[in-house]
């Protein structure tokens, strides 16, 4: 699956590990919440970066105390219409200060990419045959936004303030 990270296509060094699969030696893995809860000790002491995958009914609140162990959190969109992960992403970034990779997985669609990015996702797993160039362009669909949210784009209100100050 093509992976976009920080605005460009990159190779994916991570292995998404099924709950039944054995832990490999030398690859960083992304595990489910259940596996994390059962194998915390092993996963923490493995000497490898660790990723966590949360379903849309698993609030990151549940792992608020464990965030220091994860370099990556993958939030799942089971259907693109299930928008819970937008809130989760903002909470992870803004409330819990999570600064690792925040990856959108599942039913990720081109026309939602920009919303995801604004909420703090910096990585996106694309469908197999997605035209990556067109998807990257979708990140440029809008140049103005009203809301101050997780990304660094200045909202319209502060642009207006700048204009007013400049005019004075």
């Amino acid at each position, binding site marked *: 699956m093509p992976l976009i990270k920080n605005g460009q296509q990159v190779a994916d060094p991570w292995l998404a590990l099924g709950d039944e699969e054995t832990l490999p030696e030398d690859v960083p893995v992304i595990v489910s919440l259940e596996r994390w809860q059962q194998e915390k000790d092993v996963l923490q002491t493995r000497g490898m970066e660790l990723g966590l995958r949360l379903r849309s009914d698993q609030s990151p609140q549940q792992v608020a105390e464990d965030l220091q162990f994860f370099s990556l959190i993958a939030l799942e969109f089971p259907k693109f219409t299930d928008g819970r992960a937008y809130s989760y992403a903002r909470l992870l970034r803004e409330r819990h200060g999570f600064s690792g990779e925040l990856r959108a997985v599942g039913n990720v669609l081109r026309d939602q990419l920009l*919303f995801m990015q*604004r909420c703090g996702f910096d990585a996106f797993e694309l469908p197999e045959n997605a035209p990556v160039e067109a998807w990257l362009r979708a990140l440029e*669909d*809008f140049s103005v936004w009203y809301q101050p949210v997780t990304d660094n784009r200045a909202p319209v209100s502060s642009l207006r303030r700048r204009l007013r100050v400049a005019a004075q």
Partner: protein
Amino acid sequence: MYRYDEFDEALVRERVAQFSDQVQRRLNGELNEDEFKPLRLMNGLYLQLHAYMFRIAIPYGTLSSVQLRKLAHVARTYDKGYGHITTRQNMQFNWPRLEDAPAILSDLADAQLHAIQTSGNCIRNTTADQYAGVAADEIADPRHYCEIIRQWSTLHPEFSFLPRKFKIAVTGAEEDRAALRTHDIGLRMRRDADGNPGFEVMVGGGLGRTPVVGVTIREFLPEEHLLSYLESTLRVYNQLGRRDNIHKARIKILVQSVGRDAFARMVEEEWAQLRDGYLTLPQEELDTIARYFAPPPYETLEDSPPELELWQSTSPGFAAWMNENVAAHKQAGYAIVNISLKPEGGVPGDITAEQMDVVADLAERYSFSEIRATHEQNLVLPYVRKLDLMAVWQGLQQAGLATANIGLISDMICCPGLDYCNLANTRSIPVAQEISERFADLSKQRDIGPLKIKMSGCINACGHHHVGHIGILGVDKKGQEYYQITLGGSAENETTLGNIVGPAFSAAEIGDAMETIVDTYLTIREEGESFLETYRRVGQQPFKETLYAAH
């Protein structure tokens, strides 16, 4: 009224470009209908029984003459020459072609109009009291807050895929003309002991198949916290609202299942984190937006010009219109003019392109170029000098827009029903037309007094039947159209849901049933008592008896 600055303009243009690209991808097969559906819905484009339906946002119901002319242009150029005012103060076109959608949006953008978030599971176009800024009973002008909500909710990245659609209504007046408690969030302006403006916050109202009257979760929210509190409420809902069953996904179900107090606590907990953060509205920002809504350059006028009395005594038609359609204004010498879109035998809420042009012209000459749409599917000229009322009346009359029935029995709310809608059980427009013809006599209507009939062609309740003084719901009985009657609903200050009166009536019987209900009321009412007051005093029994006596 609000005018776009370069940023608003850029956003709407970029939206048009984005949607044009999406339509192109649909037309060349890159997107299938399933993938295209959520995209078109975010832009107000529904697939209906016979054609697409396009819903254009009229933010908090306020339009300029230029904008109304643009809507007339769209009706003429891309549709069949008319449009329809909806219960959410929007305008709907029933016959556009998909291929034309980008051109329509682009033409609309020329007049600062758009269709953003007029459908889909996102924060919909915010509605407001149609008399905002001019009502004699106003506590504070709510319009700049509406505009602030419009901006905040537009393409909100966190809240564009909510469990279900989300509707916010605002009023600054004592009398609730915005049906606050039938909305997901209702905001009523208040002042604290020091006179500072703020809001009473109500949540969890809604109609549809599970009608619920909204409850207050905060008595007073200071104005600067408006957005942080809204964001907190939406965030709680976005995470906890049900997503497994579309019929249980509205915020009302969440509020009901956890209870009002628990829900309020969750919002307050989230708000404790967000308040005083970057969503706090600086006074400067509030003032900047409020300046767009500064009063127009009113003249200093006598409040009761002698001409008015003369016209009323010499023209009974004018006098009747003055009584029913003209409301009190906060500025001396000015009046609020309601334009009824419910002519005898007409389709409630429909307006032709020519009529739109007439209204736009009258607004330009006599109402500082401003028009409002109402949730009862009429229009309003908000700033008319009393001295101009005769000219306005005559202008409206020539265009068939002077029916003197605002608030009376023929001023019905009615959904499109089976004539347009693919979810309908029954037609509703012909029933409205029949009722309107049966009660065509305006002096009889005046005798009956204030009476709101609201009608939906199916359980989705687009026509607000639950909160009609008389509600009519279309039901299907073995393939036949039947109409179930509810009595005693109201979306005014004391919001109540109507009660089903008994077995449904066939299409042939429903007109007689309406007459029976009205006659019963006329017989049993006490001096000066409205239909709703009588109903609240006597209950269903007398109506049941007369309605089902013959059966």
